[in-house]
């Protein structure tokens, strides 16, 4: 636990020293959703219908950027090998890094999302629910994404392969996240979707670090 805290502090320090890297995903999210809102016919009815889906697709693409470099720099500068030799078990290392990355890159995205929801004329309840679904969803996406990041570590066309690997895995999170927001939007209830989203989040936070750790061992051979 102590060691995980040391690692967590270092990851946070790295994010704070180079905020541009962490915030690029947020800027991408902001720009992408704005382009959507601008390109769609400005009829409130249409915007409201398309809004939840558009916001969620953009958040999903932004979280691909969040996980892309998760292990890359550690692998390149030899830190990963030293982490393998650390008494901290590798799944705990992965979980710590993924959590720090989520806090640094995905949480800002979650926090600005209600503002971006305004562009789509979302109702008050949908605007309130949006950051909660995105928080759960991006946490799941970052942890599932860590498997992909570990698998494509050191490959030349890694980022292309990463999107091909991860986007299909992201579909369940996308469906239930967007459905929950749409449900709140048209008042048809969202509890079931939110529960499934939370379950997906818990499952990936629990199991993904073990899979990523196995992939990292392979990458270090």
């Amino acid at each position, binding site marked *: 636990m102590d060691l995980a805290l*040391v690692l967590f502090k*270092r990851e946070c320090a790295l994010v704070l020293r180079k905020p541009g890297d962490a915030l690029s995903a947020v800027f991408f999210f902001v720009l992408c959703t704005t382009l959507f809102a601008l390109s769609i016919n400005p009829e409130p009815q249409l915007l409201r219908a398309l809004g939840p889906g558009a916001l969620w697709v953009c958040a999903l693409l932004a979280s691909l950027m969040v996980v892309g470099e998760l292990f890359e720099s550690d692998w390149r*500068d030899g830190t990963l090998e030293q982490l393998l*030799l*650390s008494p*901290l078990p590798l799944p705990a290392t992965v979980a710590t890094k993924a959590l720090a990355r989520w806090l640094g890159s995905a949480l800002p995205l979650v926090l600005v999302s209600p503002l971006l929801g305004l562009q789509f004329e979302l109702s008050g309840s949908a605007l309130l629910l949006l950051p909660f679904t995105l928080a759960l969803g991006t946490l799941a996406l970052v942890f599932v994404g860590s498997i992909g990041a570990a698998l494509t570590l050191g490959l030349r066309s890694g980022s292309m392969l990463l999107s091909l690997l991860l986007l299909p895995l992201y579909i369940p999170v996308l469906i239930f996240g967007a459905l929950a927001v749409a449900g709140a939007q048209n008042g048809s209830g969202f509890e079931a979707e939110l529960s499934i989203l939370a379950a997906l989040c818990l499952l990936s936070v629990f199991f993904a670090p073990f899979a990523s750790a196995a992939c990292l061992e392979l990458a270090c051979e």
Partner: protein
Amino acid sequence: MFETLDLGCCKGRRTLFSGLGFSLAAGEVLHLSGSNGCGKTSLLRQIAGFAPLQSGQLRWQGQTVDARSLSWRARLAWCTHQPALKDELSVGENIRTSLRLAGVEADDEAIQAALAQWQVAAQWPLAARLLSQGQRRRLALATLSLLSRPLWLLDEPFNALDDAACRQLWQAIHQHAAAGGRVLFTHHAAVAGVRVLALEDFA
């Protein structure tokens, strides 16, 4: 006693070495020699448990060890040409974090003393990206000497080091051996006064 029995390594269809066995008693230093591409680094990576053993086994004090277990890895200090420094952090932050992640609680005075031995103490507040290659290596080796792990695995440790740092490394290796540690290092050139294991003998 640390022993390797019948280790082998194949890359594709080529056998780099096979039937490799040696033993390393406490306080011994072993130089792995051989030409480029003969499998020196592969052997070290197998012993460190990064690459799986393709054959044979590792034994520590007579017991077979699982090279991928945490208990085995906790005995190793590993040093390659990658010094595992974060460019954004200062030298002090880097070395403090590295030590703590390795499970070592060292106070700043001990760290400063080790850095002074390696002549990088003045760089303490600097960001690691400002260091030269040689200084990075010195920093990695200073960290190594603070780890207090019984088996050192060093891959070409003399690269990018100047004469003074090479002498310092020899001193560190001998100090570690004198304290009952074991050192296994690769080096392309011949070294006087150290037991040699030529990998070509097992090709």
